[in-house]
């Protein structure tokens, strides 16, 4: 289990250019597998174009209390990149005027940003239909100052989306760290206790499932059924939806794939599972991802690869939704992760 980020370890893969090089070399360079651009061109879907904005995703910083094996953000306690109040104020201006129906706060652990609560209070005033905070659950039990987060989320009608790789302790702790499972269960029980995730409750609690290894997620509906049955029977926990998300071959997951000699097989699996009908609904076509320092990206994965939007507008300080529409989406071979099987996005399957 890693205890430090790739950045802290000064790993070669902390460099996004190195990751992009790997993704374009080897089996993709020698023609064994088709490049993503060529693959989507087969069905006339190249270049991939942005549609009307629906989701504004804001990364409040890469600091996290966990160091998960598969993390595409390379987040951890040693990451110091945190969104400042000045950038938050620029984001608030955008939130007040956006046409997007969903605001999605992520990290790292977004709650670790010192201005997180102020930002949520201000952002909730904009009246966006769906206000998501991606909480890793353990943060709620990490320190006394976070114990009241469930109440805080409830007060602002926040939609909580939390990671839970499996309903068993062994698989969860292996991916996310020793003790994560027990803390997550306690946090879910706390959320349930105030109404989150209960049937008919308007306090939305969804879980995110990422495979804990070099394999793709199974059918989202079947997985949700298994998760619901096991969590209810074993811990009396309820939640609304399960989002099954494919691990993309970047950052720490790429590092794991290479170190475990699974990289080629995993890329084959992604390409074999390529589904052209998922391309039309990939999240980059209706999302803008904003980094801790205000840069704009097509998605969170492109943010981590430092592939900024192909637009005249690249920073929150010059944000213009109209100009961002119809932009060409920046792609590379990691994009196969979002088009495999039933597709994958931060909201789970896309078809």
């Amino acid at each position, binding site marked *: 289990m890693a205890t430090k980020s790739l950045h802290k370890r000064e790993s070669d893969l902390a460099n996004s250019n190195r990751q992009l090089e790997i993704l374009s070399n080897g089996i993709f360079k020698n023609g064994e597998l088709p490049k993503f651009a060529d693959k989507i061109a087969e069905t006339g879907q190249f270049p991939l174009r942005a549609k009307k904005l629906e989701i504004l995703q804001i990364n409040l910083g890469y600091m996290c209390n966990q160091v998960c094996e598969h993390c595409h953000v390379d987040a951890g306690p040693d990451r110091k990149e945190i969104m400042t109040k000045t950038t938050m104020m620029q984001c608030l201006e955008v939130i007040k005027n956006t046409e997007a129906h969903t605001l999605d706060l992520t990290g790292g652990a977004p709650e670790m940003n010192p201005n997180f609560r102020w930002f949520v209070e201000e952002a909730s005033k904009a009246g966006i239909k769906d206000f998501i905070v991606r909480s890793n659950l353990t943060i709620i039990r990490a320190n006394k100052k976070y114990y009241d987060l469930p109440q805080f989320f409830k007060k602002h009608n926040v939609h909580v989306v939390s990671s839970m790789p*499996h*309903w*068993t302790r062994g698989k969860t702790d292996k991916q996310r760290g020793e003790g994560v499972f027990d803390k997550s269960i306690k946090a879910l029980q706390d959320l349930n206790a105030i109404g989150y995730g209960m049937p008919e409750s308007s306090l939305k609690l969804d879980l995110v499932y990422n495979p804990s*290894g070099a*394999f*793709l997620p*199974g059918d989202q509906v*079947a*997985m949700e059924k*298994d998760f619901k049955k096991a969590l209810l029977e074993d811990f009396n926990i309820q939640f609304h939806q399960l989002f099954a998300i494919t691990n993309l071959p970047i950052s720490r997951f790429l590092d794991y794939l290479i170190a475990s000699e699974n990289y080629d097989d995993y890329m084959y699996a992604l390409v074999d599972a390529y589904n052209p009908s998922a391309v039309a609904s990939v999240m980059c076509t209706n999302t803008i991802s904003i980094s801790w320092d205000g840069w704009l990206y097509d998605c969170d994965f492109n943010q981590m690869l430092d592939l900024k939007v192909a637009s005249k507008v690249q920073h929150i300080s010059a944000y213009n939704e109209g100009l961002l529409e119809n932009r060409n989406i920046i792609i590379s071979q990691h994009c196969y992760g979002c088009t495999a099987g039933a597709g994958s996005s931060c909201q789970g399957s896309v078809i």
Partner: protein
Amino acid sequence: MSKTYYDPADLRKFGAISDWNEELGTKFFDYYNSVFEEGKLTAREKSLIALAVSHTEQCPYCIDAYTKDALQRGITKEEMMEALHVGAAIKSGVTLVHGVQMMNKVNQLEM
């Protein structure tokens, strides 16, 4: 030409069996895919049966494929091993039940 009888990379080429007989290959894969669809048995139960049979048939390709399939379905390693023991129990039962034939023969031949 591979110097070993089994190459893990060959599993990816399974579909190529249709190249030399498209009609029968297509029929086989249609049948195969239909078998594993959700039915009276769940796809999850079928996956575990396939995993156990992969072992009793000692097919390395199938073991790789259905181990991965089980992980994708969230099946735990304890469940996987339990399924294997079903296969192993049948295998040993198959051996031992033939012991009745051996005993019959002994009883017939001995004075």
